[in-house]
């Protein structure tokens, strides 16, 4: 049989050049990732454990991977000290080193690739990693994602000021690095995640001026709340932050009471603080998980969009597991690391075994309706804000511009017609899609990759469409899930046979024959596919 040559412009026969191969790649060296690494090594697997921490201060300055809000103290510039502090603050990192595990800190994973219905080019599971100098590719038989958590952003006038930051960022800077700038903070939110964050910050010497909660009652653990109250923290339920004031950075939070309709009353008072910690919604970090194509659904009992998992922590992609906070966040898990460690142990036990049909055990029901709670926060803080501000800080898009689906201001679009094209005209038959809104308004399109705004935009769209948060599709994540300088791509080699074929679109000679030279009939046999070809 005459086997035809493959299309030279296609991926067929163009091997991807892989830097290293490992049995098990584990992404994230927190409680779950460490347990997974130590456990997998004990089972005899070759393990590579990577963690992006300590994140270079420039990256922190871009609010990647967490909303650091410029809240880094000066000592965050000392990279060696940051590395030492990071290792010292988690004894099991040393244990992993001593076990002989290949632990690489300061190494981020920016992409995970698996073959599927629309991809057959990968030699197996491929992960893209990057340290400060270069990007490289790893092939792994198994990947365990232990990527942790981040926080829903929540805007109000002045929220772009240094000192407004996510709870996870504040907690990491304070407890892992001893490098948190603000010394007196207001914490937004009263869920268990918010309260444990406040208490942990207090432990490190940060004064917790107030807990601000839009709901009538605090939603988290009463004992934690009491402990804060006894320590002198004001508990302001039925309140919202109207503005963060200050010249260079946050100097005060102006707060106001919400009336029965959820609208802030005109009376305001200032609370002196140099930090405002956003703790209204701890969210699993699913960027790699979603970008890889794992099935992700809105699961309120897991803190929002989270991977669907089986009892062995398997995602929908073969040999890809999720453990720890990126697999779901709930109050008990926040307070007890052994829950995350047990997930890691289940994933390790499942390595190399066939998937079973059993679903993961459902976490306990949330203490409160997280959809209603997060929508209420966005309504009180963003929709009812007294002045417009940028919900998307990168692209400078306001809530109104999002809801009115306005073209970005840089286009300076002045139409004679009144083009009344607001969210309602886009809705059509389905729920509003944040990716569609992103394409039209640029909200969520900037270098922070939507980390600060995506949950707020979803909430705004839900409010605009009178739908629950769960109805709003996830704004898709795409590799690189960490911004990557073009210059860092250069060291990754390309197969020579691939390098030959870039000057053309599909490499089809016939496609670019000018119309005045096109023959009347096309057959493969009579097609002249010789000589150079370039497309336009």
């Amino acid at each position, binding site marked *: 049989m005459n086997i*035809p040559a*493959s*299309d*030279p*412009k*296609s*991926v*067929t026969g163009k091997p*991807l050049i892989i830097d290293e191969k490992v049995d098990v790649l584990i992404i994230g060296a927190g409680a779950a990732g460490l347990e997974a690494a130590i456990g997998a090594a004990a089972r005899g697997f070759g393990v590579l454990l990577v963690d992006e921490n300590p994140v270079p201060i420039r990256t922190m300055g871009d609010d990647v991977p967490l909303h650091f809000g410029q809240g880094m103290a000066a000592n965050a510039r000392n990279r060696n000290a940051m590395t030492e502090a990071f290792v010292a603050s988690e004894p099991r990192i040393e244990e992993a080193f001593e076990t002989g595990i290949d632990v690489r800190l300061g190494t981020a994973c920016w*992409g995970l*690739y698996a*073959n*599927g*219905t*629309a*991809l*057959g*080019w990968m030699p197996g599971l491929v992960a893209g990693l990057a340290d400060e100098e270069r990007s490289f590719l790893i092939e792994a038989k198994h990947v365990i994602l232990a990527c942790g958590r981040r926080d829903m952003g929540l805007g109000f006038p002045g929220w772009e000021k240094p000192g407004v930051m996510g709870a996870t960022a504040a907690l990491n800077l304070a407890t892992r690095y001893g490098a948190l700038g603000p010394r007196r903070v207001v914490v937004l939110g009263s869920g268990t995640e918010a309260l444990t964050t406040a208490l942990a910050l207090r432990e490190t010497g940060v004064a917790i001026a107030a807990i601000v909660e839009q709901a009538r009652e605090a939603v988290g653990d009463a004992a934690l709340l009491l402990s804060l109250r006894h320590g002198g923290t004001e508990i302001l339920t039925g309140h919202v932050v109207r503005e963060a004031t200050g010249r260079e950075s946050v100097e005060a939070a102006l707060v106001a009471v919400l009336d029965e309709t959820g609208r802030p009353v005109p009376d305001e008072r200032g609370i002196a603080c140099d930090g405002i910690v956003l703790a209204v919604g701890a969210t699993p970090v699913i960027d790699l998980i979603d970008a890889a*194509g794992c*099935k992700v659904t809105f699961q309120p009992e897991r803190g929002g969009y989270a991977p669907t998992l089986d009892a062995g922590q398997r995602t*929908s992609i*073969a040999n890809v597991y999720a453990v720890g906070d990126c697999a779901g966040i709930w109050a008990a898990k926040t307070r007890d690391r052994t829950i995350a460690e047990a997930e890691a142990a289940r994933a390790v036990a499942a390595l190399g075994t066939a*998937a079973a049909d059993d679903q993961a055990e459902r976490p306990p029901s949330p203490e409160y309706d997280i959809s209603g709670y997060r929508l209420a926060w966005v309504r009180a803080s963003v929709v009812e804000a007294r002045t417009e501000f940028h919900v998307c800080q990168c692209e400078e898009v306001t809530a109104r511009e999002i809801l009115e689906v306005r*073209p970005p201001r*840089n286009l300076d*679009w002045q*139409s004679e017609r009144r083009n009344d094209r607001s969210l309602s005209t886009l809705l*059509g*038959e*389905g729920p509003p*899609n944040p990716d*569609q809104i992103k*394409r*039209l308004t*640029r909200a969520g399109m900037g*270098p922070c990759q939507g980390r600060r705004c995506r949950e707020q935009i979803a909430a705004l769209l839900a409010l605009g469409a009178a739908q629950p948060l769960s109805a709003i599709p996830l704004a898709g994540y795409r*590799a*690189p899930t960490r911004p990557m*300088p*073009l*210059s860092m*791509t250069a060291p990754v080699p*390309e197969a020579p046979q*691939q390098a030959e*074929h*870039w*000057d053309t*679109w*599909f490499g*089809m000679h016939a*496609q*670019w024959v000018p*119309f005045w030279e096109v023959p009347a*009939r*096309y*057959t*493969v046999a009579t097609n002249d596919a010789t000589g*150079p070809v*370039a497309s*336009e």
Partner: protein
Amino acid sequence: MSAIKGASVVIVGGGVTGLSAGWWLARDGVDVLVLEKGLIGWEASGRNGGGCSHHHSPLFAEEQRLWPLMDELLGYPTEFRGERVRLAASEHQMALYGRALRNAERQGFASEVLDVKQAKEMVPLAGGTIVGGYHYKFGGHANPHRTLQAYAWAMQDHGGRILQHTTVTGFRSEGGRVTIVETDRGSIGCDSLVLAAGPQTGRLSAMLGQEVPVQSARCEMIVTEPLPLMPLGGVDGCGLYGRQTLRGNLAYGGGPHEWLALAEQGTPAKPTTPLMLHIGKRLAELLPKAAHARIIRSWAGVIENTPDGRPVIDRLESQANVVVATLSSVGFGLSPASGHAIRDLMLDGACSFADISTFKLSRFAELEPNWRELQGWQVKAASEALAA
């Protein structure tokens, strides 16, 4: 299930070709309904480089005439900007890219050959990697997302309708004419049909008794954070196509494609690959002064091609009231003209502004049945879905 009101012309496919055709028809007062299985512009139409410079095509002159008018005609911004530059990193590329000049000149469009100094002046982000380039005083680039929505809104302004999340499952005909489009949301009556369903065009045309031969592939692009605007954003070369957006981002694509066996229905997955790195490396070669810029996203699109890569815009022989259209992986830039051609074919029976005989289906009359295999368009991806 409530009945969906039929239309004089039902268009299957809310991509750039279907929406442009819908707009052209609606502005002539035709009652138009566009059916889209997902969201409009969600496939290749919204995932391309935004180029508008196709001098090999019989639609070229009309493409060039219309683009500068589109913002005004549509009433919504497309971000169109005229002219392009193509930079060459080698004499080989310089020779290869020169063909555009000859094609364009024959049709009355001017270009200029740039030496290294001139090229660097025109493209401030360029550097020592180039040997020269071309300045095409035609063509240009636009924002695909915004243009897609502009077509849709403009069509609606003229009374056209769009049904998203509506999958076509079959057709019913009477006397050699399609009268009913079957969908997952019920039957929809029509006097005429336009089939402009991208990768699904092959499967759907086969249901109508005359298959348009197409095969799908996945291609990839990347985008960087914004950089200061260059005087001219449409800069190609070094094996890449793309543009600097009006916001300043560099959006570029290129490299190998992967042929796909498309699932029966629905929205195909569009995974990206580490090809992102190879695109990034070339972009840093094309524009060395942008090497510090960070890639913030990559994306893939699924695109159909005919066996010769040329469009099909033709009436089916099997059904008298059906126009089929695929632009064969080069549809965005040509869309103002392709929609016009479809409108002409539908309403007047012939294209008024160009000879589009090279787009006829009859050219495939003697096509080998195993053309995919003969051209080496092998499918590598798993044919079965992974766990859903």
